């Protein structure tokens, strides 16, 4: 079976040495994989690079395949239309539009994407909180609500593979797990997700596979059960945090 997402020799440069350099990463369909690592390890740069997107002057090289199709030379908006979606870190919503407008103005492109895409009502079913705030400006939403809206907008586009960059940042601990479980539910329904997460402990509750990034390189990866015992994970992320502190910030 073709992998949903395949990344080969991806390197992202901001002028000097590569900030990120990943040799190989394969995500089978319907898998939720986590990308963890310290601050500045290049997690965001990596997922942005998979799409070829950046807010700064990044240069990306390497091969990315979506369901077997090579995306080289294809511009960002066209990659999105084909179903490779990114929910970037931070406020990925249009603050001057209402919740409903944010969802309505984001539409799938093409018949295939249309078949996969969520309707506005389905997004509201998934995140009932958004339905309550449908007339509010997105700028007035809380951090958690904005994340729901950002994810909802992406679902409107009919994703095959979704790249989620720290959706739990700034969320109350109780909400982190709720959000991650919702993502898990989407994956169980067939979506493929690459999830960047600082909260390693919470991520391990939901992901199938884990990639550990350090200085822009994958230094360890494997099924989550195996990674739980990996000394590098235990030492850096699990050992020092008390088990009852699920929200423990890891830096």
């Amino acid at each position: 079976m073709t992998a949903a997402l395949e990344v080969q020799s991806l390197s992202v440069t901001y002028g000097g040495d590569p900030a990120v350099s990943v040799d190989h990463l394969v995500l089978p369909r319907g898998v939720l994989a986590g990308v963890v690592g310290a601050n500045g390890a290049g997690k965001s740069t990596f997922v942005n690079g998979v799409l070829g997107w950046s807010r700064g002057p990044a240069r990306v090289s390497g091969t990315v395949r979506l369901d077997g199709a090579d995306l080289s030379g294809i511009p960002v908006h066209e990659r999105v239309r084909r179903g490779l979606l990114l929910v970037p870190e931070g406020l990925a919503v249009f603050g001057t539009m209402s919740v409903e407008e944010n969802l309505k103005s984001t539409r799938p492109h093409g018949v295939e994407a249309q078949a996969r895409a969520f309707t506005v009502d389905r997004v509201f079913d998934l995140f009932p909180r958004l339905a309550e705030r449908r007339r509010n400006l997105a700028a007035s939403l809380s951090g958690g609500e904005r994340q729901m809206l950002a994810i909802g907008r992406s679902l409107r586009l009919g994703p095959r593979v979704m790249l989620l960059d720290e959706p739990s940042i700034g969320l109350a601990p109780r909400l982190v797990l709720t959000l991650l479980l919702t993502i898990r539910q989407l994956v169980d329904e067939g979506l493929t997700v690459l999830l960047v997460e600082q909260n390693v402990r919470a991520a391990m509750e939901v992901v199938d596979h884990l990639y550990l990034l350090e200085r822009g390189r994958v230094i360890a990866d494997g099924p989550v059960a195996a990674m739980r015992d990996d000394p590098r994970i235990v030492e850096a992320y699990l050992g020092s945090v008390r088990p009852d502190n699920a929200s423990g910030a890891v830096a």
Partner: protein
Amino acid sequence: MNVWQQLANGVIMGHAYALIAIGWTLLLGAARLVNFGHGQMYMLGAFMAWWATKATGMPYYAAIPVAVIAGAVLGAVMQRAMLRLTLQQNLVSLMIVTLGFGQIIEGTAGLAFGVKPRMIASPLNETNLHWGPVLLTAQDVAVVVVTIAMFILLRFVMNRGLAGSWVRMVAEDPRLTQLAGVNVAQVYLGIFAFEGAAVALAATLVAPRTPIITSMGFDEVIMTFVVVVLGGVGSVAGSYVAGLALGVFSAFFGALVAPAYTTAAAFLVMIPIMVLRPGGLASGGGPSR
């Protein structure tokens, strides 16, 4: 002084200002950039209409779409040339580049059309309408009607249409808009084509009222600037109100004081307003308002 006549003149002039500015309103609201070649694009639109009627002998009504299409193409070509700067939101460079474009357009027009004043032959201009103490031409009425129609259309498209929401998305965050699968470069191209087409349309309607000359662009860009800034950056309704207010102000200032100082007076009014309400008359207005 015939107050009613001056009021009518002001209302007509105000609609003319607003119509000339409509493209820039969208440009500033959406692309967050200014086009100091705007006045020269206005001039070119007027001369395209003059040339079309003169050289090919086509009727005035057929010359309008010719000028509008030429304006759209010119806008698109300009944007194509400036795309990289636009995507980087490099505003200072864009300002200078558009000034340069304006100079190129003006110089080329001077070579092509000569420096003599010309008159666009519009049948609407020949039709006088008396309304009580007020004398109007059909051309004046056309300016007012088309301006109102264009503003309603623009507001409707911005608030209801998918294209309008793309423009608003680009206005807020072009990079994030890419992630919605929108071709941002194409949206910018569309905005510029609209700007070029709208200013050419304004020229074909407004310019027949007075003789045209290839150096008239600069005055137009100055008044447009006042309208757009007063109206509140990118505010559609604000521009309409500001254009109208400026027109009425200019008419009465011209009649009571001296027409020669109208532009200076407009700036004198603009400066305190900008100090008191930096966001313009429609403070807090986004591109949708």
